[in-house]
């Protein structure tokens, strides 16, 4: 019997796969997956372009890193210009009681912005070129706050709620129910089909995002990173992506079975996951995002724009270890899948009211 169930699950996966990958309804899932890749590509190309500009400026106004770093606050414009020459960009503006001068220099890598007030150097702002550790933090932020919470979340809404609900709307679900297949087996087969599709789509996206982000680094920088924590980070991000599909997939499969309009439960889950940082430590664990964040290799920097009052409400919960995070996520998934399978067993075809 188990052999037959496995064979039926395999067949359901095959039948569903084409629908899931190539349905018109699924186009926006691809767009969600592609969006961060485009963002990181844009970032990389912008960085490459900036670097070219800096190198061109440095060629036109050559100055060494050591000379620029030797400049100290309090120096006059004349003293600065004597040491480092003409800036590549200069802005002046005057007020009745003060005059301001902004001079920009570059050593080819970093941009130095010297801000003078009344002919005295008041501030030095050094804008270094992007480094891998800096971009790792950017990636962690985008991954945790956009990719996990929105792209994969809504991608799973689109794929998994359609597995049953979409076929009810198409009035074609009954063909499955006319076959000698246990409804629970059908639910598992459909879930696995959705899981394979979302894992392929979003893990490909994660890999492409990392590749897109590394476009502007040199080969030696990338080799050095990969020789260190690099491959571990790549594997972890791919694992977290797959885990997100696993967890959110089960929730939205159940939502598609339990609710006529899955958008309402999807919105509720979105709110629950979004307010996770404000929840008490015990409640945090009844969510998918808590385990995903525990599994993420780089901790995303806190949102600097968060109001102080909100920061007070944020509750800290120690991230659980990777094995416990995986077990916790699996437990949440299995409980939800059991609910979905139970609902599938009692599923009725009543298209007129669906």
């Amino acid at each position, binding site marked *: 019997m188990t052999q*037959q169930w496995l*064979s*039926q699950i395999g*067949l*359901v996966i095959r*039948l569903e796969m*084409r*629908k899931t990958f190539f*349905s018109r309804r699924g186009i926006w899932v691809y767009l969600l997956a592609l969006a961060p890749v485009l963002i990181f590509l844009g970032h990389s190309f912008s960085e490459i372009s900036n670097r070219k500009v800096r190198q061109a400026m440095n060629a036109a106004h050559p100055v060494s890193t050591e000379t620029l770093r030797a400049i100290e606050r309090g120096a006059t414009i004349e003293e600065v210009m004597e040491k480092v020459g003409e800036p590549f960009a200069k802005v002046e503006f005057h007020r009745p009681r003060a005059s301001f001068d902004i001079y920009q220099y570059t050593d080819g890598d970093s941009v130095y912005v010297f801000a003078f007030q009344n002919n005295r150097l008041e501030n030095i702002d050094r804008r270094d070129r992007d480094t891998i550790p800096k971009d790792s933090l950017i990636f962690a932020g985008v991954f945790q706050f956009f990719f996990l919470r929105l792209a994969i979340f809504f991608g799973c809404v689109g794929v998994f709620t359609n597995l049953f609900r979409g*076929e009810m709307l*198409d*009035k*074609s679900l*009954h*063909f*499955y*129910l*006319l*076959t*000698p*297949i*246990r*409804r629970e087996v059908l639910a598992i087969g459909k879930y696995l089909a959705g899981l394979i599709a979302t894992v392929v789509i979003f893990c490909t996206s994660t890999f492409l995002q990392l590749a897109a982000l590394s476009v502007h680094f040199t080969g030696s920088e990338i080799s050095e990173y990969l020789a260190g924590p690099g491959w571990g980070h790549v594997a972890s991000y791919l694992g977290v992506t797959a885990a997100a599909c696993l967890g959110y997939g089960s929730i939205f499969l159940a939502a598609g079975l339990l609710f006529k309009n899955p958008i309402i439960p999807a919105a509720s889950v979105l709110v629950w996951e979004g307010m996770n940082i404000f929840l008490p430590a015990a409640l945090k664990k009844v969510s998918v995002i808590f385990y995903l964040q525990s599994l993420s290799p780089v901790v995303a920097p806190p949102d600097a724009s968060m109001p102080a009052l909100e920061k007070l409400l944020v509750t800290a919960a120690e991230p659980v270890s990777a094995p416990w995070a995986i077990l916790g996520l699996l437990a949440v998934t299995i409980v939800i899948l059991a609910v979905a399978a139970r609902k599938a067993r*009692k599923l*009725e*075809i*009543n*298209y007129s*009211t669906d």
Partner: protein
Amino acid sequence: MSDRIVLDNVSRFYGEVLGVNRVTLSVPPGITSLVGPNGSGKTTLMNLITGLVRPTRGEIQVLGISPADPEKLFRVCGYATQFDSFPRGMTGFQFISSYLRLSGMPYEDCQRTTAFAIGRVNLGDAAHRKIAGYSKGMRQRIKLAQAIAHDPRVLVLDEPLNGLDPLVRAETIALFREFAAEGRHVIVSSHILHEVDTISDQVILLSNGYVVAEGQIRGVREEMSEHPMQVIIRCTRANVLASRVFEQDHVVEVRLHADGGGLLVKTRDADRFYRALNHLALDGVGIESVAPADDNVNSLYEYLIGGEESTR
């Protein structure tokens, strides 16, 4: 194992809306027709028998199997529903073969059985075309092929003759008879009394969710002959067909459709009319579909069951 389909005091409500109420039946093998006007509970009864909906009360056994156990039920039962929608992007062949594969049939057997089932409904030429491009009649036949493909002992068919032209209709009825002759159950629903009267071993009359009569209904034909029946025909050369049809002495009225692509015929003898239509179809008139007009059938039906209803 029982050879009957048994419904014991079965009721089904959709919220406050009645589907069927207190239905108790013991259906023997042979062709059994469920007859009733739209909304009388025919489809609900078929969905209950096949487990697509669950009874609110009562119990159902199909050859001793509960419809709540699809794993067993659909090894002995095939169901052609009235839903006219199919999984997207599939050819007729893929549709049947994927269904058989899910039943656990090995690939080679599946290919052979699919070809055989499609051949039985004369759809061989269109087997590898997308179902989306099929005509209404072809879609009816592919559903029938799916229902019979695994050689079931119980065949449940919801309005299976809808949209079929006279020749295919005759072939399909012959197929039902073949199944019944082998001692199987063929349960057919229809809102056309005439249609089922000619093919059924027994008839179950439904009205407003209640079984109002069951068994062999003799005299229905006579009753029907007193009440003209309306038939809508979509065809080419509708004016030619109209003139030929009107030559029949049992035809009391013929009206051409405004678009010239069909006609409405009122006849006092549906049997003779269908026989005549078969000849006319062979005579150069392209008949696309033949369908009785509902309203008239409903009124006839109400006439037939009026006495039963009044006694309830």
